[in-house]
């Protein structure tokens, strides 16, 4: 059988079996009443002990949401979602808000261990053996399980340098002035259907504040886990890098295999003030559904960064391998003069997955620059679209963008689309766009196999070569993880 044909067959067999994180944690949950109403929103707000203004904010969003309709322009196709048939809040009974690590339910700790995310600071420290003198990379983790954060590590140590890293519900209690100042200023409650829904019902997520001039002493990361049945996850993340500060942040996501679809509608807001930089990386591995398209996460996400200050920088790097439906456009508003936005993406679709993803670079300030590198890989019967907007405001004198979108097809049953929009209102800006679509080359696979690589390894090697520019943008530790994930998403047995 021809190598490509074999690859296609193999990929077809990959489905539910390949998903390593599909187990269910047996834990008793505290649920809000099913469906969506003002009562449910009050319930969520009360559960979190929020200030009154926050409840009002939520209710206003809810009322607005009732007047909106679901967007239909994306190249994705799914049955209507019954918003009244979902739970909007689910929390493990044993955790009434995050406590110290010693108090966390051992069942939850085991869950994160199985996911490869040790929550004991000691273990993280003892993790990787490194040569003498070389600094160990340390990662502070916020673990979000369904609607609540169950643990956040290294909080004390981060506090020493003035960094705030905690669940957003805690930030609302402890730092309400900061949250109030920035929440909804990047993604307004009226932004879009899913963001508005999120504003009404968001449960947990991470809050990060880096004070002026501080380089965050370690990587920060949040791991999202959806466990409970028929439950939506509506996380909200807010990261503020004050003047001259720097932070690198990573999020990971997994969910159990379930036959029903699960809704995930997150909002992430980033703000950089003068000379600050945020590097935001995502390794998204939600359950993609089985090979017939049964089950899987509906991932409708609004991510946006606001380069508010001059010379500030926001860079998005994403490795997307999961979800049944992905609707996601991490964007940058380049408001500050000479600010810079970057978007590096690897989106892999297989089975019946549908991806409509890309970015927006909105150039407002003078001398703003942006760079977009997108690598889409479609296999099986999946559909994979890149949708991007690059625009320049009248005042964006000398704005520059470079865009490169490459698509790789494995087999004949999948599809790839590139949908770029460009709007330049200032004649001095320079926007460059390159795009290619190619099929995985039978000849190159043969060449690799003639050297002894199995057809699976050859495919993984070729795909890893295809995405190399983007992989290089990931923090070292995660690049290796992402590389493995790419193999697993495409192969029958690798990993």
């Amino acid at each position, binding site marked *: *059988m021809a*190598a490509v044909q074999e690859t296609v067959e193999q990929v077809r067999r990959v489905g539910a079996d390949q998903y390593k994180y599909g187990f269910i944690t047996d834990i008793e949950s505290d649920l809000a009443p099913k469906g969506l109403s003002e009562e449910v929103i009050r319930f969520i707000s009360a559960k979190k002990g929020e200030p009154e203004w926050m409840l009002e904010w939520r209710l206003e969003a809810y009322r607005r949401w009732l007047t909106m309709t679901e967007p239909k322009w994306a190249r994705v196709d799914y049955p209507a979602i019954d918003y009244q048939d979902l739970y909007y809040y689910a929390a493990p009974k044993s955790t009434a808000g995050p406590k110290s690590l010693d108090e966390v339910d051992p069942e939850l700790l085991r869950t994160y261990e199985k996911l490869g995310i040790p929550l004991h600071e000691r273990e993280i420290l003892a993790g990787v053996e490194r040569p003498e003198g070389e600094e160990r990379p340390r990662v502070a983790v916020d673990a979000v399980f369904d609607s609540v954060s169950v643990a956040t590590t290294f909080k004390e140590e981060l506090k020493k340098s003035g960094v705030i890293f905690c669940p957003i519900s805690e930030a609302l209690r402890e730092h309400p002035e900061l949250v109030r100042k920035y929440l909804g200023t990047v993604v307004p409650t009226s932004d879009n259907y899913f963001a508005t829904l999120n504003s009404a019902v968001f449960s947990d997520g991470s809050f990060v504040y880096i004070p002026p001039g501080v380089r965050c002493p370690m990587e920060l990361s949040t791991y999202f886990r959806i466990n409970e049945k028929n439950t939506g996850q509506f996380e909200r993340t807010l990261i503020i890098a004050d003047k001259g500060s720097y932070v690198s942040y990573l999020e990971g996501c997994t969910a159990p295999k379930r036959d029903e679809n699960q809704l995930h509608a997150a909002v992430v807001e980033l703000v950089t003030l003068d000379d600050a930089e945020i590097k935001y990386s995502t390794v998204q591995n939600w359950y993609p559904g089985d090979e017939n398209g049964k089950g899987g996460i509906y991932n409708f996400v609004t991510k946006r960064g606001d380069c508010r200050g001059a010379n500030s920088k926001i860079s998005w790097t994403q490795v997307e391998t999961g979800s049944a439906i992905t609707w996601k456009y991490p964007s940058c508003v380049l408001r500050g003069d000479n600010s810079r936005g970057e978007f590096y993406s690897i989106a892999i679709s297989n089975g019946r997955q549908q991806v409509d993803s890309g970015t927006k670079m909105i150039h407002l300030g003078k001398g703003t620059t942006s760079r977009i590198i997108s690598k889409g890989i479609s296999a099986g019967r999946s559909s994979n679209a890149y949708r991007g907007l690059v625009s320049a405001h009248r005042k964006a004198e000398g704005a520059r963008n470079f865009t490169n979108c490459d698509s790789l097809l494995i087999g004949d049953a999948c599809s790839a689309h590139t949908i770029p929009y460009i709007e330049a209102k200032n004649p001095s800006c320079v926007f460059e766009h390159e795009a290619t679509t190619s099929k995985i080359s039978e000849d190159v696979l043969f060449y690799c*196999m003639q050297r*002894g*690589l199995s057809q699976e390894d050859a495919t993984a090697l070729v795909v890893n*070569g295809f*995405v190399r520019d983007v992989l290089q943008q990931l923090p070292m530790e995660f690049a290796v993880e992402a590389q493995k994930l790419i193999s697993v998403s495409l192969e029958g047995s690798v990993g």
Partner: protein
Amino acid sequence: MTALLEIRDLKAEIAGKQILNGYDLTVKAGEVHAIMGPNGSGKSTLSYVLSGRPGYKITEGQALLAGADLSQMSVDERAAAGLFLAFQYPLEVPGVATMTFLRAALNAQRKKRGEEEMSSPDLIKRVKELAKILDMDMEMLRRPVNVGFSGGEKKRAETLQMMLLEPKLCILDETDSGLDIDALKVVSNGVNQLRSKDRGIVVITHYQRLLDYITPDVVHVQSAGRIVRTGGKELALELEETGYARYQSEAA
């Protein structure tokens, strides 16, 4: 003793077109064979059929590697069993550093044979030695496989891969084309280092000059998909004089 390569009355086609028409060839361990013949006579086709390139179909006859029926093995199994093809047109693998590729290939073969993987320091050491023999810059090996390599550089890189993998049967498809005079010597020297009593080498070439450096034990003339004449190394000299005209009419 079983021959290293035994081809018996092999017929093969591509896209429904028969290219090999009853091919017979026996290569014993320790021998170097040269195959010469006009353009389009099926020399590359033979190498692809033996290595299992998709699309090439054996319709009759047999090809055995150390007694094992090649048609029953996948491409990578053939490679692990010791068959190496230096491509007439080596392919590019964008984004994959040559060093990464070498490590992946060598260790994949070793694993299939139940051998221990080679450690990275050992591998780098070995590759450095080979690069020196082939007069190649290590910088080139950090670049993606064959991407942006000149024609001659690609042929050197093929030779380096072959020397690293230490195959039992080496098939060199016009490895000399694209090489300048100095490079020809360097590459031939590398190939000669592979000559051993356990190994067979098949050199496909159009030019007698290569055979001045890699002296063959046997020379074959191939025409219209089969071998039409076999002789010693003096046959290559004769061909240089006379060309293929008489063999082409004979085959027709």
